[in-house]
């Protein structure tokens, strides 16, 4: 029979102390990274000098107008990409789903590039137009990918066709980008190529503030979906019987992801692999439960992007490496490693 001692052998699904420990640890690491990022750059500014007022006016200007918005944008974009990666993986019940791999980011990129070439300089507030273009691009790719996933049902065939669909969309968007580059003027071309490599250089208060607010909404929508994403792992009909409205969940996650990723791409270009790398590492450490995984991925993504961006700014100072190149250099090999390990497991 069952002894009373056996009753406390199972820790609850979400032990509060562990959650608090993990999240506060990640927050602390993020704050340290922010402090480091704030202090370093082409122009070294000591945070202490800023606080006690001994910094000269140029440093203060640089710090407030360039560095701070850039750091905040790094936090928002990192959190959004990694958070949406974790949510997509939950939604497709597949650890290889990621906004870049599935073509969401490049779809958004194509729409933004189209916007730059067609409308740049013509409409007032064109940057918000870029936001809208990014959102629409990501949303349409999301719907296409979902249509394919739905038609294939579950199983490994669906995974295969998802990744192939992502490949096709990425290729198509790449070709579309090439066509746009061909017809663009010199001025537009320069803007396209700078933006396309994925960089946080364009952080201005005007746009960063709007992006922060919208990304916060998207992150909140994702965190609110955590319990339902857990349920979805049971398969759709079983999850329905356990009280999950899957249609509502999918709609919410798709809208939040498209909004967030679209915005990120419009602001920074495509920053690859963050959405794959961060949730995957954290899942190995924390387990697959989304109530911890989602917020931890967001903090981890912010941490990774702030560190990567600070490295990008300082490694070759005063020149800058686009941070998207850095994350792709890091993430590409890791993805290959994942594929090899999966194949061995099968």
């Amino acid at each position, binding site marked *: 029979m069952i002894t009373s001692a*056996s009753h406390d*052998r199972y820790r609850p*699904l979400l032990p509060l102390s562990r959650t608090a420990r993990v999240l506060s640890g990640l927050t602390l690491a993020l704050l340290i990274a922010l402090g480091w990022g704030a202090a370093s750059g082409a122009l070294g500014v000591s945070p202490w000098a800023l606080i006690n007022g001994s910094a000269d006016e140029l440093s203060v200007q640089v710090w407030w107008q360039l560095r701070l918005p850039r750091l905040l944008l790094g936090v928002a974009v990192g959190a959004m990409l990694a958070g949406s990666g974790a949510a997509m993986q939950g939604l497709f*019940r597949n650890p290889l789903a990621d906004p870049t791999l599935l073509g969401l980011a490049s779809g958004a990129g194509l729409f933004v590039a189209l916007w730059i070439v067609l409308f740049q300089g013509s409409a007032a507030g064109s940057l918000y137009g870029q936001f809208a273009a990014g959102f629409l691009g990501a949303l349409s790719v999301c719907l296409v990918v979902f249509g394919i996933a739905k038609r294939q049902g579950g199983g490994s065939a669906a995974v295969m066709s998802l990744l192939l669909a992502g490949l096709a969309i990425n290729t198509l968007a790449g070709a579309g980008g090439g066509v746009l580059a061909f017809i663009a003027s010199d001025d537009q071309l320069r803007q396209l190529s700078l933006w396309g490599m994925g960089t946080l250089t364009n952080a201005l208060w005007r746009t960063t503030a709007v992006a922060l607010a919208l990304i916060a909404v998207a992150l909140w929508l994702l965190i609110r979906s955590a319990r339902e994403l857990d349920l979805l792992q049971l398969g759709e009909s*079983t999850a329905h*019987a*356990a*009280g999950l409205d899957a249609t509502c969940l999918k709609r919410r996650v798709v809208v939040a992801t498209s909004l967030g990723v679209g915005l990120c791409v419009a602001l920074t270009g495509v920053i690859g692999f963050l959405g794959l790398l961060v949730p995957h590492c954290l*899942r190995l450490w924390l*387990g697959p439960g989304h109530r911890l995984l989602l917020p931890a991925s967001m903090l981890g993504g912010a941490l990774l992007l702030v560190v990567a961006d600070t490295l990008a700014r300082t490694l070759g100072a005063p020149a800058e490496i686009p941070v998207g190149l850095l994350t792709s250099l890091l993430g590409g090999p890791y993805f290959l490693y994942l594929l090899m390990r999966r194949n061995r497991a099968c």
Partner: protein
Amino acid sequence: MLTLHKASFTTTPSIAPLDGTLRPGELLAIVGPNGAGKSTLLSMLSGFRPCEQGELHLDGKRLSEWPINELANRRALVAQQELPGFDWQTFELVSLGSNPSNALIAELLHDLDLTHLAKRSVLSLSGGERQRVMIARGACQLLSRRSPTAKDGGLLLLDEPTSALDIGQQQRLMRQLRAWAERHHMAIVCVLHDLNLASTYADRVWLLHQGQRIAHGSPALVLDPATIAEVYDVELLPINSRNAAAPLLALTP
């Protein structure tokens, strides 16, 4: 608890109008050849695929009018196996969909002979072990979400719960289902392929063929060798069972 009034699907896979009642404490087996509509019927009983004509009532209220979350307190479904994508530990997977006490998890794992696997990753389990984990999860949902005022233990729907089990585990599972039905006053519906299991353990059997229920009632009545031979297009050898209420069938060589 659950009653059907001419409930049916007209679009394929179709189900001809059905009447019937599922009672607490009773084990109902749904049998029939491949493609007879067993899984479709189960998903109709669960409300996942709402019936297109006729009505289904749970506790006197139409199934489609139940809020999805309240319905989950009253019925659980264990669909045919899907591989979980992530490496949940066994006890974590069992508690998905409810907020069970450790005592309940321990009891259910013990019931299904899973205690030694409690902290293993479900991805490392065998097919049969994983199948029992999913069944434990379904029972866990019903038992831990059961309201204190409920008169019965709810409705547990199982799609081919024995498909990956060896004969020893099949016997233990079917006995356990009977025990749950009695102990918790649950209504249990199983889709089964093994007619002898249905005959030995079910209180009632529904025999489906091409979307129609062609026989229903006690196992002795429904699992009549002549009917089964015709429906399944098979040559059978009735076995002299010690229990006339539970006829057994074997295949001829």
